[in-house]
């Protein structure tokens, strides 16, 4: 863990970091570092565009989208044997009637994939928010109060780590029916907080010994203000980074559970459930299998890369920010002059 190392390496990065961060707020520093992280920036743009397409194409709830089919429409004419009509023509591509193809009974795979992606996104966001809130609460209380409270909370965390998510979703499916993505997201959120709680606790254990906590206490702040008003802003990097990575995990977990038949159930669709449904037709209609998988990868990959970019931006000690060549040269020149002096 980086936190065991109070001396974050020698010269170069620190001097540079100090120069580029003078007089800026944390938010601005993080933002400028994040923008320089090419992979993370590209991922952020790709993710935004994908989410806009996913939400707008078939519409959300009562709002209609711009796409001509809905996930449940059945097109009686199977175009081109159901093959995808998406094609490159010169410099631009044409969508055709069914860009991602059609399934056995003529439903539009594009519309179904979009619907699946919406459901997966919804599960992911709900899960991410709930897991983050619970994880921060538990971690903060355990790390701040230490002693017995900490002990009890950490043992509870261990119980939650041991319980496999799949059993809980099976129970949900049996008792309430698993066609409700919101419920599914809430349940997963209530299961996946332990990792974050441990990290937040570790941060609180060191932060609570710092002078600003004593200062706040002398000024008359109560425990809640110290915990969430004073310490949390200092631990926000860990929280944001891990909440992001948690969402990437959630995308894959949701897909895996639905694939095994313990997640989202028909008639509702999710990306994993689509793959499960179309698995057997791989040899005859491979596109049924391609597109949902492609969107899972897009979501997981872009969110993972954004999380990595955020980690670099919040924690310059890791120094993984891709530098431009000039930046590198500058650093070398600086070290050389320092050595020469």
């Amino acid at each position, binding site marked *: *863990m*980086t936190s*065991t*190392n109070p*001396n974050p*390496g*020698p010269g170069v990065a620190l001097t540079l970091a100090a120069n580029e961060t003078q007089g800026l707020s944390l938010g601005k520093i993080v933002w400028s570092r994040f923008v320089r992280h090419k*992979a993370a920036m590209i991922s952020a743009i790709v993710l935004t565009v994908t989410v806009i397409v996913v939400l707008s194409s078939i519409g959300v709830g009562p709002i209609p989208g711009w796409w001509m089919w809905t996930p449940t429409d059945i097109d009686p004419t199977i175009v081109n044997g159901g093959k995808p009509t998406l094609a490159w023509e010169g410099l631009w591509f044409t969508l055709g009637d069914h860009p991602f193809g059609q399934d056995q009974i003529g439903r539009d795979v594009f519309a179904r994939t979009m619907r699946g992606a919406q459901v997966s996104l919804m599960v992911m966001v709900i899960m991410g928010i709930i897991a983050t809130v619970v994880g921060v609460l538990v971690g903060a209380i355990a790390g701040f109060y230490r002693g017995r409270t900490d*002990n009890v909370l950490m*043992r509870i965390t*261990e*119980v939650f*780590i*041991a*319980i*496999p998510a*799949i*059993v*809980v979703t*099976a*129970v949900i499916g*049996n*008792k309430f029916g698993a066609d409700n993505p919101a419920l599914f997201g809430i349940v997963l959120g209530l299961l996946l907080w332990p990792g974050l709680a441990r990290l937040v606790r570790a941060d609180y254990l060191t932060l609570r010994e710092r002078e600003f906590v004593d200062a706040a206490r002398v000024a008359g702040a109560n425990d809640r203000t110290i915990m969430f008003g004073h310490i949390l802003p200092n631990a926000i990097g860990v929280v944001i980074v891990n909440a992001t990575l948690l969402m*990437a995990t959630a995308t*894959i977990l949701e*897909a*895996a559970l639905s*694939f*095994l*038949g*313990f997640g989202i159930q028909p008639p509702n669709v999710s990306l*994993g459930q689509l*793959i499960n449904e179309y*698995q057997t037709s*791989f*040899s005859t209609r491979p596109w049924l*299998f391609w597109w949902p*998988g492609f969107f*899972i*990868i897009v979501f*997981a*990959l872009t969110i*993972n*890369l954004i999380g*990595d970019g955020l980690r670099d931006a919040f924690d310059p000690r*890791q*120094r*993984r920010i*891709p*530098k431009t060549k000039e930046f*590198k040269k500058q650093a070398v020149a600086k070290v050389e002059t320092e050595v020469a002096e």
Partner: protein
Amino acid sequence: MLRFITRRMLTAVGVLFAATYLFFILAANAGDPLEDLRASSQPNRDELIATRTAELHLDVNPFIRYFYWLAAALQGDLGQDYRTGQDVTTMVGDAMGQTIKLVGFASVAAIVLGVLIGIISALRQYSGFDYGITLMTFLLYSLPSFWVAVLLKQWGAIGFNDFLADPVIPPISLIIIGAVMGIVIGAALGGEWKRRLMFGGIAGVLTAGILGIMSATGWFTDPGLGPVVILALGLGVAFVIVFLTTGLNNRKALYTALTVVAVGVAAYFPMQQAFLYTGGPAAIATLLGFIAAGIGVGLLFGGQDRKLSARAGGIVGGFMYAFLWLDFLMSQWETYTNTSAVNGRPIATVGSSTPELSGSGYWITTIDSFTHMVLPISALILISLASYTRYMRGSMLEVMNLDYVRTARAKGMPERTVVMRHGFRNALIPIATLIPLDLAALFGGAIITETVFGWNGMGRLFVDALKTVNVNVLMGYFLVTGILLLIGTIIADVLYVILDPRIRVES
């Protein structure tokens, strides 16, 4: 320390109780174990329902039913599968054997590969190789495992089997493979452009050439190594091992390794006979014999550093045995593919062995289980490789920036010593504390991989039991995996304290 461990053990028992209780309640509510009976049209349906209800105590509320299970479990009775009447203990035991075989192999491979790639990537930070590896690990990390598994099954198996039916690599593919190999090796080497181009070029041409020869001579239908190739491989291994462990300047270690290679090659013809009679335990005994011989050679060379020579000799000895073993295994390949059960399509997609081939000798069954394992293992390695690479790279970067590494360099230590002794060993600490947890999780099986490839391991046992609400089986599974997970956590904590003396235990 002892107090710390005892206390952790005691709380672990408490945690285990709470977790099993919670799990039991959940499992009991996951469905209806009487479903198949309710739907059946047998005349004695009501009787059957009554029997099963009595057997599983279904008339008792789950919150209390747990204690029926606990009372039996404390006496060592985990109950039976209600459908087959099989003992849960034997079911879990069998499944665990299968899982260890599959996931154990894959984990070891993933750890070794991940550590290796992570180190190279860290040492070449911000190079093209590093960026390539980083991008690749993120991609692998984001791949859904079931998707990879289905793809491997459809393309890996069918494609490779088609290839084996007519194993000729077209020249175009040879050139492409050679070029890719050359670029990867050139990028991984680092240093001056000239050197990288040269070695990359050599590697590329060699790869393409060797593959071309293999393709032309029909190696893929009747593979083998032969004494010459074993000698070449042995020499390569000897130099690499000596370079990494002691440096080539240590002549005694180098001579030890070379002697061991000579001994290994000399053993080629006698071993051809010996292998016919070895299998299972005898194979492991022979392996230990080779390692012992290597150590012996090292000690015979003597000198102050005889322990270092012995270590290098032992490692090379192990490798030599592996090559001999592999060579003999390959010689059986043609027999295997031509058996009627396999019929020229060796890469299997489902199950863990070909039933018709059971009892046809050590070598054939070994090949058989390899051909069944190759796809699930590739899927598992692809998925778990990424996190080890990431961890190792991060940890290595952190260590290489520390003061003592700079001190070592300032003292004039050779780069090999700095990387291997000061860097690598310390960078392994965080990984070493991860491994007990990963190994513990390993016993839980790879649910998705086992399901897709029809492998009867722990993961599959669990999913099947969950589908039929087989609470006894589920509890048996959870008890084993839960205990292992808690032990893994404790070992990880203890290991951390032992490996890093800066951390003290509060007890």
